[in-house]
């Protein structure tokens, strides 16, 4: 699956290069200046990529003179690989050990933020299987000795559990980690009671708990400040096409602002409410996310999955550094990966500054 994604990406690049050549020749011949700069964005069909969809649909990229094309991938890691290899220019995905290893090799620069766990908004939930819950796994501090489903070793699920365990006083080493490769496998294993626990995004956790298929025993936001993912580009783009990166960042930030206004509006009590733009934003996001489902169903899922994004997509640099250190301490990220080198805050100021 992964290689196919990369392959199609490579094919596209080749085609794009040809096209660029042809366009270049035309431009040269006709002497037209200021042709739109072509950029390729790697994304997942997840709510977390929404600012990109909003910027594209509302013409923010066009306003900046960018001709943006979005290429879709099935999982997070190929997005990073596509950017490291030059097949795509920009991407947003979750941070993982693999991502940090790739970034540590110097090909990637993190320039902004994706999702962030915030105490005021629902983020990822900690679930216990019915079987384990009935046997007494009713709170996070009792997780010791239980099995835990994750997609892969060194994934964000692994990190979240590690950090939750640390804060909750649970010995992670006593837990049996079960890498199951995919989220559907994790859900299946939890529902059937083959694993005792997992951590999962809210729009999956809530329906599971509502359907009585599992129990929510805690929320990640209660344990950690957590920068879930980031916005990143290739090191070469930062060096050679700085103006393009700046234009992209402006458009992305406009998308983030619309996302926050449409999906993160709260009332005085901190309760999530509908704003003037909610429907407009939902309509845009629905073109990309749950596109195969009717609007009434999809909208609820999108709202459930709309996690917090910081204002102006500011990156929680301190937390990213803490994550890198956590992975490094456990040997999942090589010791020479240096966050100071692969985080570039010259486009967007870091969170809290």
């Amino acid at each position, binding site marked *: 699956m992964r290689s196919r994604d990369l392959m199609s990406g490579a094919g596209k690049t080749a085609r794009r290069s040809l096209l660029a050549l042809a366009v270049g020749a035309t431009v040269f011949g006709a002497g037209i200046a200021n042709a739109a700069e072509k950029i390729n964005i790697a994304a997942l069909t997840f709510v977390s990529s929404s600012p990109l969809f909003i910027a594209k649909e509302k013409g923010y990229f066009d306003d900046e003179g960018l001709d943006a094309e979005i290429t879709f991938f099935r999982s997070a*890691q190929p997005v990073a690989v596509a950017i490291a290899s030059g097949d795509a220019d920009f991407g947003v995905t979750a941070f993982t050990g*693999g991502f940090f290893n790739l970034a540590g090799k110097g*090909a990637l620069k993190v320039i902004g933020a994706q999702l962030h766990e915030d105490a005021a908004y629902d983020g990822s939930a900690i679930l216990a299987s019915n079987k384990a819950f009935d046997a007494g796994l009713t709170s996070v501090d009792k997780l010791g000795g239980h099995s835990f489903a994750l997609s*892969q070793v060194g994934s964000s699920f692994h990190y979240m559990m590690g950090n939750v365990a640390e804060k909750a006083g649970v010995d992670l080493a006593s837990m049996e980690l079960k*890498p199951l490769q995919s989220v559907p496998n994790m859900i299946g294993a939890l529902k059937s009671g*083959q*694993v005792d626990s997992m951590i999962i995004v809210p729009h999956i956790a809530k329906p599971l708990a509502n359907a009585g298929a599992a129990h929510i025993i805690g929320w990640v936001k209660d344990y950690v400040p957590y920068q879930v993912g980031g916005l990143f580009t290739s090191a070469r783009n930062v060096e050679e096409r700085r103006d393009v990166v700046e234009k992209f960042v402006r458009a992305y930030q406009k998308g983030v602002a619309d996302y926050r206004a449409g999906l993160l509006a709260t009332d005085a009590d901190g309760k999530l409410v509908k704003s003037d733009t909610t429907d407009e934003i939902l309509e845009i996001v629905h073109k990309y996310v749950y596109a195969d489902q009717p609007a009434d169903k999809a909208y609820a899922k999108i709202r459930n999955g709309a996690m917090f994004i910081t204002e102006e997509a500011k990156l929680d640099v301190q937390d990213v550094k803490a994550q890198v250190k956590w992975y490094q301490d456990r040997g999942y990220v090589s010791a020479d990966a240096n966050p100071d080198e692969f985080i570039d805050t010259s486009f967007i100021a870091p969170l809290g500054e």
Partner: protein
Amino acid sequence: MSHEGAKQMAQTPDTNSEPVRFRATGFNPKSNPVAAWGSFILVIALWQLGSSTGFISELAMPSPIAVAKALWQLIISGDLWLHLGASLQRLVGGWIMGTVAGLVVGFLVGMFTWARSPGVALVSALFPIPKIALLPLFIIWFGIGEPSKFATIAFGVFFPTVINTFGGVDNVQRNLIRMGQSFDLPMWSVIRKIILPGALPTILSGFRISSSIAIILLIAAEMIGAQYGIGALILAAGNLYQTDQLIAGVVVLSLMGLCVSWLLGRLDRWLLGWR
């Protein structure tokens, strides 16, 4: 022509005479262990040279030294033995299950009319299925624990073993079986003393294939729910882009393959000494 005359001719060759040219050259490859090891060393040396000079980027391929370091780290941390132990258990268990089942079915298909056509049809239909595609089913049937891992390997080993076994049984000379029957040997004796040893050379060469398949399937088997295992190690290293560990794991798999091949060679010599 007199004897003298013949001697004369031998002593004074005609100017047109020439020795018969030797023509049966080539088409007779011989093994050369020095060249075998030499090729390994040459490839590794070139690879290291490419890495040291920066011709091969660290992102594309870790250097042999980095791989050796990763391997050494695995050894001194003791993780390698944990991984190896878990994998060997699955390999041996899965292979034995698949092989025993394959031998039984292979013998039935090889010997009995009632089993022949249905057996051949089913095996031909199921053999080409990539076992990894059935992994989700195995997880539903056998859970995410050890049984699904054994099943993946056993399933992969089963089909080639069936095909090999009935091929081997087919190849047992009919006259030997008739001989056994003419001496009124009971059926079990015919199977045990004539068919089994007669099919053994084919079955043993099939073991080489099935053991390689078992090692190949180890990765698939350890995709789901394996905390330890060489396959799990390689998968995790791949996901983490720790390419040095990934190659180190591949090296371990390859060494495992060599060990199995050596063991089978010994088994061959022990069981087929009569050849």
